């Protein structure tokens, strides 16, 4: 069943979210994908609602065995053109800048979906990527309540003893990692925001240094003015440096940590679904044992289906966890290396610049 099917008519690995358009409060994303058949491209515009529709369909593939064992690629929180403070907080890194990061995240989501052996088989994906008609506009959301109840249950079942050692450790591990990844992402967001503030402060300082220029022919004053102007330039480059440092942070590690944290969330959800199934199965077993002879057969039947489902889930889940682990490490490594390289480049550039400016300062008359 795990055949790398190509039910999609487009390449999954280079799906792009190229543009974001603001239409009142809603954001519309332009999605471009290359046809497998030739050089043609599909251009579609999708709103967040369409994404949610897709996600919903992926969740509810009842006919696929062990679908609940899949770690679904996570969709970021809904963004609007004028987000409230709460939404911004939810979005974290994704709320910074002009939604480029958000687009990147959506792009990554689609690629993950398209690359997923089970999920990509769903017709909805094909429709989503190629149909010129927006698919999900009319659908009402019903997910909200589900999520809430899920959260309550999650708490209850968090400590549920697992029958499988592998999943027990994975669950424990996931719990810790989810928490840490989330805080790390938040802390890093703070760092980036501070950097941005510094950049702004430098810009202000640089601008007001320009005002310090004193008129007059006096050589001392001219020297002072010159110093002011040069200092202003210095701070301008500090500002630029800080801005690019912050951008690097955002685009690489920030995005990476955000993804990591959401992936861990997704894994957690999957594990939770599995745990739910486990609970269900154990209840069925108990019921089957205790059942009156009259109902015994039905109970046994229920137990059996539960067992089959659970096993399916476990098989898929195990594969998913392994896949996820590898992908995650690779992603993090890539992120770190990229981040490091970019920062190094920025640091070297600015060091060069400072050096030049320092020389220039030394050069001007005492």
């Amino acid at each position, binding site marked *: 069943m795990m055949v790398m099917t190509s039910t999609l008519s487009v390449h999954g690995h280079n799906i792009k979210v190229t543009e974001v358009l603001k239409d009142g409060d809603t954001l519309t994303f332009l999605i471009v994908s290359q046809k497998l058949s030739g050089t043609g491209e599909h251009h579609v515009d999708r709103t967040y609602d369409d994404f949610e529709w897709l996600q919903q369909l992926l969740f509810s593939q009842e006919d696929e065995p062990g679908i609940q064992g899949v770690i679904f690629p996570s969709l970021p929180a809904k963004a609007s053109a004028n987000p409230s403070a709460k939404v911004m907080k939810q979005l974290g890194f994704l709320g910074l800048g002009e939604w480029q990061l958000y687009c990147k995240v959506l792009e990554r989501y689609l690629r993950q979906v398209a690359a997923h052996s089970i999920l990509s088989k769903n017709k909805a994906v094909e429709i989503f990527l190629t149909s010129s008609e927006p698919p999900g506009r009319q659908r009402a959301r019903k997910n909200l309540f589900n999520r809430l109840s899920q959260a309550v249950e999650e708490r209850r079942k968090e400590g549920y003893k697992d029958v499988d050692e592998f999943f027990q450790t994975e669950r424990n*591990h996931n719990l*810790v*990692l989810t928490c*840490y*990844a989330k*805080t*790390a992402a938040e*802390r*890093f967001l*703070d*760092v980036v*925001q*501070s*950097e941005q*503030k*510094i950049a702004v*402060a*430098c810009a*202000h*300082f640089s601008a*007001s*240094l320009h*005002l*310090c220029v*004193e008129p007059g022919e*006096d050589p*001392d*004053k001219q*020297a*002072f003015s010159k*110093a*002011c102007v*040069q*200092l202003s330039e*210095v701070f301008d480059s*500090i500002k630029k440096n800080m801005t690019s440092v912050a951008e690097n942070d955002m685009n690489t590690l920030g995005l990476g940590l955000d993804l990591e944290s959401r992936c861990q969330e997704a894994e957690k959800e999957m594990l939770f679904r599995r745990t739910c199934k486990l609970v269900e199965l154990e209840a069925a077993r108990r019921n089957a044992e205790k059942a009156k002879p009259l109902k015994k057969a039905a109970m046994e039947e229920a137990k059996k289906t539960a067992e089959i489902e659970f096993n399916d889930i476990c098989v898929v889940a195990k594969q998913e966890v392994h896949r996820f*682990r590898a992908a995650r*490490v690779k992603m*993090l*490594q890539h992120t*770190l*290396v990229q981040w*490091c*390289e970019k*920062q*190094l480049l920025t*640091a*070297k550039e*600015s*060091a060069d610049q*400072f*050096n030049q*400016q*320092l020389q220039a*300062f*030394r050069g*001007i008359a*005492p």
Partner: protein
Amino acid sequence: MVNSPLTEHGSTPSPASQPSDVSMKPLRDILDDPLIEPLSSQTENKPTTEDASEPSDDFGNLTSNITDSPGDTAADATEIPLDKHADDFVDIFGVEAEAPRGKVVVADVTIETAAHKREAANDVTDPPGDRKTGSNDEEQEVKETSTDSIIDLSDDLPASDSQQPPPARDRFIDPLVNLLSDSPAASDAKIPSRATVDLFKDEGSDLFADPRQHKSAHQPQKSLLDEPDEDLFCESLWAASKKLVSKEPRGKPDATKAASNVSNTGGPLQEAADLFSQEAVTAVPGIKNASTVNSKTNGVHSEEEKEIFAEATVELSLDSPRDERRNDVSARPSASASALSAAASLAKSQSASLEELDEEEQEDKFEISISVKDPEKIGDGMNAYMAYKVTTQTQLAMFRYKTFTARRRFSDFLGLYEKLSEKHGPNGFIVPPPPEKSILGMTKVKVGKEDSSSADFVARRRAALERYLQRVVNHPSLLQDPDVREFLEREELPRAVGTQALSGAGFLKMINKATDAVSKMTIKMNESDVWFEEKLQEVESADQQFRKLHTLVESLVVHRKELSLNTASFAKSTAMLGSAEDNTALSRALSQLAEVEDKMEQLHQEQAANDTFSFAELIADYVRLLGAVRAWQRWQDTQAALQKKKETEAKLLWANKPDKLQLAKEIAEWEVKVTQYERDFDKVSATVRKEVNRFDKEKAKNFKREIINYLECHLQSKQQLIKYWEAFLLEAKAIA
């Protein structure tokens, strides 16, 4: 000989007072620019040494039909009495301490009766003029006058000898009193020697008598340095002279001798210097001559003297063109012999020369550096205070040791400022202000909260105090102040009192006073001088800009601190993430990252400190300094206002009752007052100009230095950062 000064003084109090008015400015100069003035005075010294031939030439030039002989005799005359009376002096001090004391008393009295003097001066406005013109005439009549006057002068010498040192000291003790409380009159008493010079020379010579005067002040000081007796400068006049007599019977006469030597012949010779300025070569033998003369009489002093003269030769070429110009300026008023115009032109030439002097100033780098270290909390509870170790390193000869330390508490710093601003503030000096007292900051320290904000507070204050002291000693005249030296050198300092209020209260008070005075006036005050008007505006706008800059930098620093905090917590969470990671390579990389972030936090912290101390504090300092500058100009407004008021009053009086004799006298008195104020004003203006120029120059230099420092630090941290990244990149790539 002993009597002659007394009689001389008694008989010519009025002429004495008149010229000394003019020489008020020099007084300020002395305080202002001790290092430069001595140089210029030394150039005059040199001419002095040429005395044998030069003065005669000079006279010859002036009086077209002169013969050589009078000049020679004149020179002889000067030399002989000098020697003689050096001996006398030694006697006076060595054998009979009473005599000098008596003289000092005279000086004292004259100071106290400053008011009377003014009256006298009023009477005198004409006589000196007459005398001057008379002397001019006489000069034209060749020989008799020149010889006579010089002989006169040498007769007067004892007077000048005995009285010069005390005034010099007096000036050190409390110039403020002099300058504020109708100081011209007070100083009248002090400079009889100049008066004598004035009498036979025109106003131009006055200009040059000033530095001479300073020289006399400077020299005793130098000679006294060998002695541990700093008290000399701060104790009362009487005590000072007594001590001098008892402790250094030799040194002082020597010094005064040298001084008188200079002042004696300086008048005529200064012109000689002008005329012969190009021929520096001829000056050299002259110097030798002088030093031998000195060594003959002084013995002890000769070495120092030589040094001074050696410097003088270097300075000669610089000074001479200016001298010429000054002479030009001063020649005119002398012809008219009007005290007022003389004063005006004096002020002009003075300010011109001051600006020129400014340029020289740069070359005189004070080899002194001060560090304030080891802040230490002393005592407990609300009586606790912070003490700092003040370490001075210097190459200057005026200090006994090359390195010395003293422990000072914060209020001592404030006390020093109070003293300095009281003394020098009204003279037009920009006294660098110390950091403000901070009740909040100090209370935190007192309560003993060891949090970061109180540590930050102490660190900032320590740095601010260091910069404050460094600024004070970088100011050429403030360095000469006995209080500064005492502050740096003495083990125990009398507890500074009255600093409880904010340290800024001093000039706040001054501002209030000034505004009061202004509001009292119905006439709207216009700043007559465009320069000042511009400067005032400049300073105002600079103040605003600096304030703005300061807030901006502070916010930058806040963000930097925030960044370092955030980086620290990010490092912590990465470390946790790393510890939870089960992929070993990734785990290691993450822990590595945590370390890197920790180091980066350090860098950010340093950067924040760097921002703080390079810019925020520097700019804060300048806000303070600009406050001082501003306070300054307000004061000047008042001064000008006062002057105008007097003027109008005088005019009113004149208009109403012109016939009454009594009133006429009063009016004349008022007029003198007015002219005095005018002169004061001009002098102060000149000083302010100079100070503001100095301030601008220092500002430019200081900023440049700080910026370079800052950039260096910044670059360093960037390079460090690069290293960190490079190290981490390897680690990141190693993740498999």
